[in-house]
């Protein structure tokens, strides 16, 4: 499923080797294997950064909302 954040932006964030501003040591990859697993995990789920849009979709589908707030970007493992 294509994520609604903008596939280009998210994939760039995942693939460019750069120091990401992170405030928690756990938010980092431990190698390519982990990075691949996280990329796969993220593409399995459609991530939306608009809570109002999520509400509409949740009410239409009867699902809960899982909403993550974090320092940085959702391109590392939680």
């Amino acid at each position, binding site marked *: 499923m294509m994520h609604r954040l903008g596939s280009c932006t998210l994939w760039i964030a995942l693939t460019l080797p750069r120091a990401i501003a*992170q405030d928690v040591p756990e938010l980092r990859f*431990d190698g390519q294997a982990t990075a691949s697993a996280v990329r796969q995990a993220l593409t399995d789920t459609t991530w939306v950064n608009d809570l109002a849009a999520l509400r509409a979709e949740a009410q239409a589908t009867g699902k809960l909302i899982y909403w993550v707030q*974090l320092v940085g970007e959702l391109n590392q*493992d939680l």
Partner: protein
Amino acid sequence: MTLANPAVRTWLKKHAVSGWTNNEHAAYAGSSNRHSPGDACKTINNGAGARNVQQFFLTSDGRVLDCLPGFWNPVDWLAEATFALALARVADDRTLSADVRNEKFLAAHLARITVARTGIENDSQLQPFDKRVEKHSGSDFTRAPGLALSKDELKSVYQVFHERMAERPYLPFERFDVAAYVEMGQRHYSYRDASPTDADPHPRSKTRSR
């Protein structure tokens, strides 16, 4: 790893619509050392990083069922996710008055503390540098007189967050006071300032899967 865990991914796909936001500019966000993607991950306790990560489970109309402060291992994440589903069913029960629903919410969160899996107290302890901050009489991490097994014993993050949630029954997300909810431990931690007693700032959880 939690979001990459197959059971977590399956749960999310089946039960939730997912979203995220960057809260780096929030007043309550923490500030600590920076780490590059190439740094090795460490196993840490549940609840570490509360000021930097908050994982909300909301009803479809945006009321807070549960909020995991910080990181949580997949086993305990799934237990809380299942719990959130149960709370959502209570929220949707139109035969209940708002007062009764809220009472059930409070009771359910407090009951979580007593029915948690064996070992979760140990896996959800504050990190040493955060314990130093919370060892004062005004902290809700301290136990009432006579209930602590030792003078240094503090409640786990697991217990405290469920107690805090019990006080916030079915709040709309916009009214949920995140700053107060994640008020725990240090806002800033520098490894250069580490105390000699911080042998490992990220104590390992035996149950956290990698």
